[in-house]
């Protein structure tokens, strides 16, 4: 103290994780197989990857004994589809200027995001076992200064979409053709900042922006419709100027179609109807699994349901 020092304990302090190049290579091979496959095979491969991501979520939350498992499981197909078939990214060069941007606005679903990033090779999958451990890079909410592939720090709700709007404007100003994807929770759409941002996205005709709402119809304490009703959500988004695509958020073929570029010159809003806790029968559509932690027996049962080989 008493000297003029750079902030050493703040967001820039500590170590940034680095890529696992072997894993990047495996991820690239997997992307190649998916790109070369016909449509049903693509869907099968991505579904398989989503189930693998779900198993990673369960293990990650089990090791931390904390997390937001319900929303992690509802968003898994969305993440698997984006990371394996849509996003133009290079995990070995995470700050490449001409990359697509992905923002997980529902930052509490960090275990799913970290699993997707690790499986893409942004950092070693072994790091997932440090989730929320003391001084881990893998905080309960993502920090871009510690975790490559994280574009902006999220956690407080209603933050990701405004930043995505800025990225979409910035990319367009620089003549880049990259796209920006942002996933929000549905409860999060109760935040006014999201609607400020949607108005801007429509006003600036940000055709390079895709909003994906993980519409699992449950928020922390209750159903969205019993709390502060969002419906008719697709109509509301359309009225605000979005090109709306309402789909089954667990159907990979529908996700792939919905993630196609805008056809209207307007921002795309994908309302992905999902099931909170998807894939684990005793968690599905049950409000208590927002952030309940499974017991050892429940972990085993969940992994079995998610296709873990014995």
């Amino acid at each position, binding site marked *: *103290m*008493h*000297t*003029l*020092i*750079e*902030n050493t*304990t*703040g*967001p*820039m302090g500590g170590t940034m994780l680095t890529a696992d190049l072997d894993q990047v290579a495996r991820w690239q091979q997997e992307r190649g197989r998916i790109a070369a496959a016909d449509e049903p095979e693509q869907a099968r491969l991505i579904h398989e990857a989503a189930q693998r991501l779900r198993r990673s979520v369960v293990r990650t939350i089990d090791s931390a004994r904390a997390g937001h498992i319900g929303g992690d499981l509802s968003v898994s197909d969305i993440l698997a589809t984006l990371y394996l078939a849509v996003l133009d990214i290079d995990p070995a060069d995470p700050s490449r*200027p001409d990359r697509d*941007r992905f923002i997980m606005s529902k930052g509490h679903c960090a275990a799913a995001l970290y699993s997707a990033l690790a499986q893409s090779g942004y950092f070693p999958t072994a790091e997932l076992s440090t989730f929320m451990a003391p001084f881990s890079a893998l905080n309960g909410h993502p*920090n*871009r*200064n510690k975790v490559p592939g994280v*574009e*902006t*720090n*999220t*956690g*407080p709700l*209603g*933050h990701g*979409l*405004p*930043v*995505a*709007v*800025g*990225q*979409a*404007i*910035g*990319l367009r*100003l*620089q003549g*880049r053709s990259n796209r920006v994807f942002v996933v929000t929770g549905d409860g999060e759409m109760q935040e*006014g*900042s999201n609607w*400020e*941002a949607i*108005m*801007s996205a429509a*006003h*600036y005709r940000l055709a390079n922006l895709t909003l994906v709402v993980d519409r699992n119809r449950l928020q922390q304490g209750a159903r969205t419709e019993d709390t502060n009703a969002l419906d008719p959500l697709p109509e509301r988004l359309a009225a605000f100027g979005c090109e709306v695509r309402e789909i089954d958020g667990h159907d990979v073929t529908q996700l792939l179609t919905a993630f196609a570029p805008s056809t209207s010159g307007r921002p795309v809003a994908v309302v992905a109807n999902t099931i909170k806790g998807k894939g684990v029968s005793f968690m599905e559509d049950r409000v208590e699994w927002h952030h309940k932690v499974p017991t050892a027996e429940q972990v085993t049962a969940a992994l079995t349901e998610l296709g873990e080989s014995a």
Partner: protein
Amino acid sequence: MRVDEPTATGYDNRTAFAEELAALARADDRIVAVCNDSVGSSNLGAFREEFPDRLINVGIAEQNMVGVGAGLASTGLIPFVCGAGPFITGRSTEQVKADVAYSQHPVILCGMSPGMAYGELGPTHHSVEDLSWMRALPGLDLIVPADRQQTRQAMRALVAEPRPTYMRIGRHKVPDVTNEGDTLVRGRIDVAVPGDDVAIIATGTLVSRALLASRQLAEAGLSARVLNAAWISPLDEATILDAARSTRAVVVAEEANTAGGLGAAVAQLVAGQGIGVRVVSLGLTEFAPTGSNDLLLEHFGLTSDNIVRVATNALEARGA
């Protein structure tokens, strides 16, 4: 630093800001401006004429404005995000915290017409909490330029090394307190006038008043050291501690709330070192009544006469 008699006339920092922003933008196409319907109040009309695509007006939506700024910065641009001080800090504090400071997106937040510049419009439009709020955020620089020259220098320094920053841009005319050619260095507080009886640490609009007070004190045979605290975060602890050790009283003057502002920072620093010098903080302690900027500065004792009175009393209490 010059010690010319401050005058009632002067130059407003907002005009310097607008001119400098356009000049910087001509030379560097990374520079963009973002505002909340405040093209007029942020003095961005000419910028919009010259760079229509590089002015992003998000309308009356400050949370979105700051988030958009963070997104622009993350693509490699240098956004100057402009809004009236009370709203860019108060309405969007969480965006400043999460999207700018914690995320470390190099956004330059410009609080227009800060302090009590809006006078009779009242406490809703006064930005006197901004220094406390913004100083509490790690990783965010805080700059309060005292004149047009420091305004330009701060902007140039930030374009040379973009970093998350909140800076105040005043709307009222203030006298020049620095010379062209004086340099503003990040994290360094300039000693405007040497002295060893009392130290006056002033920021922004109070610097010219502190300089005038030092002249009045000199006439009474007291030598006052005046510090122009423009770059407040990171804080130049060495210069402040040297002033506290070299004098017998410290007066801090800011057009801001005393709770958590510069005065609080100085008191915490000096007390932490066990330096037995009295630190008196001049600023606001309550919501302002109706009145012009000048009247309110007078009301809260933010005048050269009151700085002299407080400094003299502090020295007497010390048994000087």
